[in-house]
């Protein structure tokens, strides 16, 4: 893989835990890779699988979905619902050849700024190793070109 590959990572996070965790990483001045773009949602329950597909279409090489630890959901049960969806959606992606390593799920609490920073670094490193998700990005490129006949 070329040295210069800078993966694009899109993170969908809940505002009460992981977003706050990322805030804590900031206030604690923890350094992590600048490759992540965070989309803030009220709760993991609000994170639709469609978001992940659109992020991939927009060239994300990895996607992170993260929220409150089980039992800690600000909305009581949003993360439990989310967990079920992820289980199913993840299986679907895996079955259609979208590598599991590219779609990551985590629980990061408002107190886990360090976990957030480590996680972003880890995903960035892993994605660098995986390389760009050309297989999916190719589909987008095809759209942009005229058919060959």
């Amino acid at each position, binding site marked *: 893989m070329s040295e210069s590959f800078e993966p694009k990572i899109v993170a969908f996070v809940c505002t009460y835990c992981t977003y706050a965790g990322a805030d804590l990483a900031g206030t604690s001045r923890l350094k992590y890779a600048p490759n992540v773009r965070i989309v803030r949602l009220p709760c993991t329950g609000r994170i639709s*699988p*469609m978001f992940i*597909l*659109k992020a991939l*279409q927009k060239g994300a090489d990895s996607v992170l979905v993260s929220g409150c630890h*089980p*039992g800690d959901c600000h909305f009581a*049960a949003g993360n*439990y*619902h989310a*967990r*079920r*969806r*992820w*289980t*199913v*959606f*993840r*299986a*679907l*992606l*895996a*079955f*259609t*050849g*979208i*590598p*599991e390593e590219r779609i*990551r*799920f*985590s*629980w990061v609490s408002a107190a886990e700024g360090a976990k957030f920073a480590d*996680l972003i670094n880890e995903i960035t490193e892993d994605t660098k190793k995986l390389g760009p998700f050309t*297989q*999916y990005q190719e*589909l*987008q490129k*095809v*759209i942009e070109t005229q058919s060959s006949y």
Partner: protein
Amino acid sequence: MGIQEQYRSEAAALLSSGEVKLVIGFGPGSTADRRRPLFARTPEEAEKLVLDPACISNLTTYLVAGGLLSDGKKVAIFLKPDGIRSLNILVSECQVKPEQVVIFGYAIENNEIRPLSGRSIGDFAEIGSKIRTATPPPAVQKEAERLEAMSPAERFEFWKEQFSKCIKCYACRQACPMCYCRRCIVDVNQPQWVSTSSHTLGNFEWNLVRAFHLAGRCAACGACDRACPVNIPLRLINYRMGKEVKEAFDYHAGESSDQKPVLASFSQDDPETFIL
């Protein structure tokens, strides 16, 4: 009297007594080996009903067709076990009131028709309980396993080729009894989550969304797969989703009519080994 004749005369009786307004069954098709859905509104029309091993469609699709049951009247319908399973799901999702449906149940075994006793959905609890132990068709299982043994990249290529064939005719959706939405998500254009164009990316999105929306709701009747004019093996993807909800949540779609939808419920002990 054969089962076909018995059901015919029962259907005719239900129609003439006015107990049901319509009987949805099968009639002769355009070729010798085809059967097509038949809608009998009179006892005379009921005489045209056919029941033989070629009657394989899942007719529950018609129960959720616009407004059929909104007048509160009853409808009789010919259903195989997969149709009964679909009906269970439709009842659990509040699309059909069980008291509005009279069932002519049948099973196809060794190329023969066997009647299923009972006329209302509550009579078929045994069918529901059998789902737990039912084994998927070996061909489907084998093909799914073959795919799962591939590398993700190979699997992606496989589906890319398959989905590139898709023409977005939505026959899979229209044939499916669970696709009863008044407006499908692909028809939402603000925002357009799923590209309407049938380029491979749009097809990928459509097929993923379709499969996800059917996760834990598929009765494995095969209607989508049969309907697909370009032969995309939709059965594989549906099977894989069914397997997931079964293994992860011990959920068997259509087991009973008072089941909670798998993605609208949860258990605190749901597996989460993949979550960091």
